[in-house]
């Protein structure tokens, strides 16, 4: 046993594949890959237990760049593929890599059902708010009015907010990170890995070619201080390095207040509780938009609930104990049977 634990001393190198990484220079995906390579060795899981699956899109090339078991599937279907893998073998540590086109459009149905069913799968949703691999068409998360190749007059459609969708689909874990902060990504990916059930992490990712600086207000050097709120469980929701702004609940609405003004102190600031099964405030946090509000980052919702595969395999165990059928031979003889012993 001691040997086994020692053997688990893995490093980043163990997870780097020999394939050339073909994302565009400057693409946010590079930093995400590095963060995942940093997190995997730290999880205490043997490397052959990791399975990384994806759909189609720039982000979905990810499995080729990880030296794990991997499956690059078809557009939108990674959630279904991952669910099948996890149900067939619950011992595997399954990661699903997807994008906003893959998961919010063609795979929208599979995505919400993954959130609802809650298998223990970690989902990294690269949200660059554009179709990159097909070269610049608008996606279901593209802000309304954006001009793209397929919306020359600006989009007419109201976009999805992935966090709102996950919570609306009764998801139990939702977090958000920015691709510009590897420390934040590593920390949140680790929490996602540890959460039992479907953990969905939205990564605000930059497409340097087709949608450059789409998250600029949130990640830009000058603006990020005002527009990022990193949430921590049990801590007041205070933002800015100066720690002078925070959130309070006014009536049924969140409101940004300045600490030290109008008699407001740190004690007045709302404390973050990601474990509250009631998603009310978590939904409001997920929906906050810059510049009127800071954008909520970190783990927004993390509620305990039995993962799907655990419930199913517990039922298998129970049925094995109680069923009189021990083999298919037994099954074939259930119900009405008759014997012919004087036949041909």
């Amino acid at each position, binding site marked *: 046993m001691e040997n086994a634990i020692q053997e688990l001393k893995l490093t980043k190198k163990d997870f780097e594949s020999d394939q050339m990484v073909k994302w565009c220079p400057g693409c946010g995906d590079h930093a995400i890959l590095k963060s995942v390579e940093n997190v995997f060795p730290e999880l205490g899981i043997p490397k052959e237990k990791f399975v990384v699956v994806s759909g189609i899109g720039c982000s979905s090339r990810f499995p080729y760049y990880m030296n794990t078991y991997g499956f690059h599937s078809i557009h939108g279907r990674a959630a279904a593929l991952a669910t099948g893998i996890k149900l067939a073998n619950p011992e595997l540590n399954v990661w699903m890599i997807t994008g906003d086109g893959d998961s919010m459009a063609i795979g929208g149905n*599979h995505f919400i059902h993954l959130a609802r069913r809650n298998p223990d799968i970690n989902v990294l949703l690269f949200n660059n708010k554009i179709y990159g691999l097909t070269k610049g068409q608008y996606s279901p998360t593209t802000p309304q009015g954006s001009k793209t190749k397929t919306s020359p007059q600006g989009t007419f459609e109201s976009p999805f907010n992935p966090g709102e969708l996950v919570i609306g689909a009764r998801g139990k874990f939702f977090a958000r990170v920015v691709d510009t902060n590897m420390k934040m990504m590593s920390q949140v990916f680790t929490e996602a890995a540890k959460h039992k059930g479907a953990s969905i992490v939205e990564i605000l990712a930059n497409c340097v070619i087709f949608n450059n600086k789409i998250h600029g207000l949130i990640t830009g050097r000058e603006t990020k201080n005002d527009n990022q709120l990193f949430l921590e469980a049990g801590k007041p929701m205070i933002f800015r390095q100066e720690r002078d702004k925070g959130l309070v609940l006014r009536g049924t609405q969140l409101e940004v207040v300045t600490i030290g003004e109008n008699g407001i102190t740190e004690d007045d600031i709302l404390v973050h509780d990601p474990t509250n099964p009631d998603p009310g405030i978590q939904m409001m946090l997920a929906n906050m938009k810059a510049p009127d509000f800071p954008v909520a980052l970190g783990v927004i919702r993390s509620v305990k609930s039995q993962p799907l595969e655990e419930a199913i395999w517990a039922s298998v165990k129970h049925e094995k104990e109680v069923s009189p059928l021990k083999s298919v031979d037994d099954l074939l003889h259930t119900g009405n049977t008759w014997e*012919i012993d004087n036949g041909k």
Partner: protein
Amino acid sequence: MTAKLDRVVELDQAVIRFAGDSGDGMQLTGNLFSDSTAFAGNDFATFPDYPAEIRAPQGTVSGVSGFQIHFGKTDIHTSGDLADVLVAMNPASLKANMRWITNEAVIIVDTDSFIEKNLVKAGYESNPLMDNSLSGHVVVQAPITTLTREAVKELHIDNKSAQKSKNMFALGMIFYMFNRTLDRTNKFFETKFAKNPLVVEANKKVLTSGFNFAHTIEAFANTFTIKPASLEKGVYRNVTGNLATAWGLLAGAERSGRKLFLGSYPITPASEILQEISRHKQFSAIAFQAEDEIAGVVSTIGASFAGAVPVTSTSGPGLSLKSEALGLAVIAELPLVVVNVQRGGPSTGLPTKSEQSDLYQALFGRNGEAPLIVMAAQSSSDCFYSAYEAVKLSLEHMTPVILLTDGSLANGSEVFRIPKVASLADINPPIVEANDPDFQPYRRDPVKLNRFWAIPGTEGLRHRIGGLEKEDGSGNVSHDPLNHEKMSALREAKVEKVADYIPELEIEGDEDADLLVVGWGGTHGVMLTALEQLREEGKSIGMAHFKYINPLPKNTAAVFAKYKKILVCEINKGQFVNYLRMRLPEFKYEQYNKIQGLPFMVKELKEKFSEYLSS
């Protein structure tokens, strides 16, 4: 219950059709008669005929539910052309079924239901019991509703509940007609309604009343008996095609030593497979009801990657939705069994009717060069062996298999001799051992050409697969033109190689005849019956009936070459015959097609065969 008439006529075979409103319990009545038939030692086959709606408007022709049983002392291969006896619980069921009975058929009707209101609903302008329109038939008029109510009077149950058991009155009459005992059915009531002794008592009383009534009024000039069939020694049961399919899959999983995973979405007429697998977690079988057909197949491909016996079940429109994922399974070279229970198409088509019109879709319905194994079950009980075989071929050759069954096989039932699972062929999936130093994701077996199953969780075999073209051997993504050509050829050759592992085509009937009739899948029973009857009449005729469609059995051309004329019969517009024209263009094929959502009848096949015999 020993009362018997003296006038007992011995028959070789008979067909009974039970028909009533869809809430009248005709399926149960039919199943109970089947059970009694099994106990009497007859061979039999059954077919339910029910509307697509769960409860179509009461009393209308579209709401009629029927159940046909064909039983006899000889081998029974079909559920019968036309019925010798019709039980019609209301005017609508009489109207709907007149075309399915012989000219001399006995008709038993519930006269209580032949009232103005019901006649109008059924679209009758005059009462058929009065207007001589049933002349030629023996019509047994029984006030079934009244007598049922009377039978349970002393039990003080309400009218509505009492009427629910009127189907048992009719069953009692049929039991009398065919000299059956009531014990077995009474026992069924005791088990089924164990929690409700009043219901047990009511059903028993009604069943007995029906039996006695038929005796008392001397309803039938004769009663009938059919001697036990001479079946092979063994233990038997009744099985529908869908049940047999589910059990064949479970047997395949058990013998392969892997766990069954069924990812599926409810669809008529395939849902029973999903329902049945859902009941068997004790075998570590997981039935995953997906959010749609696509997730059904894709979750199954995931489970296949993870080392399960991967199955998805569906029907025509569902198979259309799965097409893209089938291509993924082809290029990933993973096992995958797709059971497609064919129904009338295109689109939603005729969901509760049967057809063989998904063959093109199974063979060709994917983008790119995407060959896979296509096979078709030949009878309800053959669904067991076909499903087992599909698992075996898929696992051993690392390729998707589409198994075609159809609505008739799926819902129809027949007598099934229960095999020992250990007596079935071994299943040996090509699983890679941990830390195999020679492992490469796309290394191939030199003979079968399959790649190997390297299952996640196994040490030393980490690798990536996916929908992009792979380099031969290494499995790395490759856009190299010559590699693509090579891989396309390898995928095709791998499937063609399967011909070395499937049985050769067997000729049924005469080898030295001029005419060879050809069919595939679910038409086997009816074609065989037509063939046997013609041969009994002294005609010389041979039959080649296909279970394996891609690849074709190796001796197909050799079989065809023995005959002057080849007539291909299908429940579609000619999909198999055109496939044969493509694969074996050296032969001339005639074709006979029917596309009414209905199976062939023995009579029409005999007529068609006779045309070709004399031409």
